[in-house]
């Protein structure tokens, strides 16, 4: 499939070293091109990734340190894309965790070439994205918000939320209801009643 020609700014830069890596075959959604860069993948102006297979790492433990050193602190975000392809990964991962702290790299684990490729694509396409998606401000409808609100206490489900508001008409009334009034609603057993009534009364602040 011929991808439209784009300027190098919008494609992933791949070091020739990566030739033959199955990850490249899975890189489908974003354009990529070979380029002579110190990292394995250039994912933007300030972001790069090194690829490491744990299988390889076990045989050549010193390899990755050389590579990290060669980056010479050029990038702001330095991903160590680690493929977990051995069953006994514990020791290697422990060591890499320590490395990440000392050598200033961020470890991302993946379990297949397809997943690795997906991470690369994501990094490239989110290069200029804003972070609202993880800031938790998502607009939803009143019904969804209402259900979400009522189902915070453990054990109360969606159906309970709807019976509750339909019994009381509004959320305010439901919050003010007595346990006995809640208990007569279909599906509201003692445990749920107790949880609901105690959570709306529970003080926000723990008192000492």
């Amino acid at each position: 499939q011929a991808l439209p020609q784009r300027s190098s700014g919008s494609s992933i830069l791949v070091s020739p070293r990566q030739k033959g890596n199955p990850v490249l075959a899975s890189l489908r959604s974003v354009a990529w091109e070979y380029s002579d860069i110190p990292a394995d993948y250039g994912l933007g102006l300030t972001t790069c990734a090194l690829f490491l297979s744990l299988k390889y790492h076990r045989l050549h433990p010193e390899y990755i340190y050389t590579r990290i050193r060669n980056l010479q602190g050029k990038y702001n975000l330095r991903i160590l894309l680690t493929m977990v392809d051995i069953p006994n990964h514990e020791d290697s991962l422990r060591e890499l965790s320590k490395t990440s702290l000392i050598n200033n790299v961020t470890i991302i684990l993946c379990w297949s070439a397809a997943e690795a490729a997906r991470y690369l694509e994501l990094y490239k396409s989110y290069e200029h994205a804003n972070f609202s998606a993880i800031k938790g401000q998502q607009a939803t409808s009143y019904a969804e918000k209402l259900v979400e609100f009522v189902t915070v206490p453990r054990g109360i489900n969606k159906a309970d939320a709807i019976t509750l508001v339909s019994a009381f008409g509004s959320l305010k009334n439901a919050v003010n209801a007595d346990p006995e009034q809640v208990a007569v609603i279909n599906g509201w057993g003692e445990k749920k009643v107790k949880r609901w009534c105690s959570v709306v009364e529970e003080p926000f602040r723990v008192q000492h």
Partner: protein
Amino acid sequence: MSANNALQPVKLSLPLEYQQHLFQELRAEDELVVIAKGLGLMRLVTNLLHSYDAAGNNLIIVVGAEERENAWIGEALAESAAVSMAPKARGLTVVNTDFTSVAAREKMYAKGGIYSITSRILVVDLLTSLLDPDTITGLIVLHADKVIATSLEAFIIRVYRQKNKNGFLKAFSDNPDPFTVGFSPLATMMRNLFLRKTSLWPRFHMTVASSLEGKKKAEVIELEIPMTDAMRDIQTAIMECVEVSIHELKKGNSGLEMDDWNLDSALLKNFDVMVRRQLDPNWHRVSWKTKQIVSDLTVLRGLLHSVLALDCVSFLQHLDTIHAAHSPQPGSTRQTQSPWLFLDAAHTIFETAKRRVYASNAKANAKSSIDSLRPVLEEQPKWALLAEILEEIDRDLYFEPPMRDDSNGTILIMCADEATTRQLRDYLQMMHVEPKTEHDTKQSKEAHKPSAAFMMRRRLRNYLNWKREFAQVSNALFTENQKALEGAVDPRIAQGSYKGKAPANKRRRVRGGGAAGAAPGRAANGSVAQYFEKPNEVADLMDEIRITGEEANQKADIIADPLEDMDDYFELYEMQDLVVVHAYDGDQDEHVLEEVKPRYIIMYEPDAAFIRRIEVYRSSHNDRNVRVYFMFYGQSVEEQRYLATVRREKDSFTKLIKERASMSVVMTTEFQGVEDPQEAFLRTVNTRIAGGGRLAATAEPPRVVVDVREFRSSLPSLLHGRSMIIVPCMLTVGDYILSPTICVERKSVSDLIGSFKDGRLYSQAETMFQHYKNPMLLIEFDQNKSFTLEPFADLSGSLKSVNPNEVPSDLQSKIVLLTLAFPRLRIIWSSSPYQTAEIFEALKTQQEEPDPVAAVRAGLDKDMKAEDQVFNLEPHEMLGVVPGVTPKNLKNLTLKAENVREVANMTVDELQLLIGTEAARQVYGFFNRNLIDLDD
């Protein structure tokens, strides 16, 4: 009872031989007691506690007690103290919230006595030496079945045993099931409990059997009632839905072991738990649909119970709400819905349930398409039987009054839950009231039979009113989405559901049972459609059941029992004449029996434990005769479930006995064979090296500051096991502080998903960067959970899946965003808490030890005291969901308002002062929006 404690004579209330035997055993040595449900575990525990309490000069800790158990123990101890007039007895002190201050706790512990302490508080107090393990006389562990290697209770026992070799340690459980799951479960459990001896007391134990099967056996009459045809149809249809759901589940998760997911096991009480347990290792990877089906199964199994327990009107109402809750947002397609709603069987459930309540027949002068509805109101078969039994008891009492004995002559009716008790109370009150309508005044001369007609008519009236309101509510809730969607989606699909006020001919409900026999009522997308009667049909029906004179005379439904003056009412009646309706409530039932002293017991629903309680009660009292009526629906789920529980318990005990017999072998070959991390961990715990007292010559032992809320997880216990010193503190920033620069936020995979969703992680990362140089995010997988994030679904994304403008839904893309936002945030990937402990150890080498004081201070406002900034989680979370509330103004609200109720009751003006105009309007609207009288 004679006393057995030479030092201090105490009165015990253990009349039966096996109880005394067990008590002596427990006084003599440390052991794990597993006893069958209903044989009086609580009574044993309280008597044991009392024997220590009376002696005085003790510090005894009860671990793992639930809230209500605390209440029972407290009551029982006070009572026994009064009975045996023990001057030194001090009763039970419950330490269960953070309300008691540290200083007060320290003083309390110094005084001694019996304490029931929440595990989370206890472990912190033990670690901070607020409660010195050396001073503890003994530990009583309840619910021993829940003590697994990584649990808090196991941690407590370990800390206790490390410092205290002489104190006693006794563990109790009345649930043998968990002891039989896994490889040599009993041996593992014993090691977790630091115990060497087990004592098993099944119902078939020789001593138990001889104690209960003496001359004083209770008279039991078993009554099997057939279900009505409609009930059976519904049950069959539900079973079909369950079967299909299970099938779908298997299909969607090939790769998993699901041999025992079948219809038979689906009837068992713990089927949900079983499915969850098997799916759990992969829970973060399964598709949305699988999760949907798992929750469907819970709903369906709930229905199986409600069809037997609820009356036909309530059942229909229940179905209506379930249907509303499970209906898709308008415009969605098949893929996003519960599969069972598409089955013919689902249709059968809804239709049959409806036909039990009212039927339709074409009007004689039918020009229009209006059918007349008439009430059917099928009664539950058990009601009539109950009335019959009561009559029989009456006759019995009249013709051959029983010999006077110690029992009260009260009739006790036991049923499954509070809802059923209400139903029965209504029925008993109203079964002799006849609803007289014009048609049947002539026939009413005939002998009157007890019937529920009156009650049912009242319920139907309420139901119809409710339904009208409910239509409005769901309208109000769901039209909003619809409006939003209508522009984008084909209107033909959108009109499928929830348009209560659309033109009548579009909303035609088609009655499958009626003469019309047309296509089943389906929505455009193929699921069962919600129906709403036409107003004039409902009017007909209302007319039919309108309030008659007699009905008007009856007093209105009592909703809230005036429980405060219960005592006053109790005095008014002779116990002789009372009919007491009660719900099964675990060990509390014993007290009910003792207090009511019934002559007749009617078990409205089967319960294996209660039968034993009756046996114990009967055998304990020579002069109290009891006759038990035991009723169940033949060939019903209820019957099968009952039989299955009895069988399972017996099997579990048999397995336990077998394992105990061969256990000595297991103990000697303890450290051979395949290395399980759990075992490896347990082995490293050497009780001889006191916690953290590292013998090496290093200057300082390694130390980790841990947030007290983290004690819910197993990691602190494991760190302690690797001989690090755990400093529990109330932390505002981070969960674990490893060094002055390293701060770790721990997230399990499910936490991670949740905290991305509400943005918590983002702000946590922000604050970590304000206070620490090297913040780290620990993504911790569970032991035995699959160590991967790859979903079962195909990843190879289309262009759309990496489009930055789409809101990303998968975890991978959110992790990517997080690292882009915080390039210096390090991620630790750990396959299990065991692994995490090792990683922490590695990270800490050659780092300075953290300073607890600085760690606590980080993130706190300087001008506020630390205590003011500790929050309760759930109310906070609820408030966070409310539209208009942002993480920033949330703080204002929680400081000014006491609780959620107060916020809900605030006016716009009050809110405005705290959070500004726009937000105030949103918050006020959220709570005050009226869903019933909606005008637009």
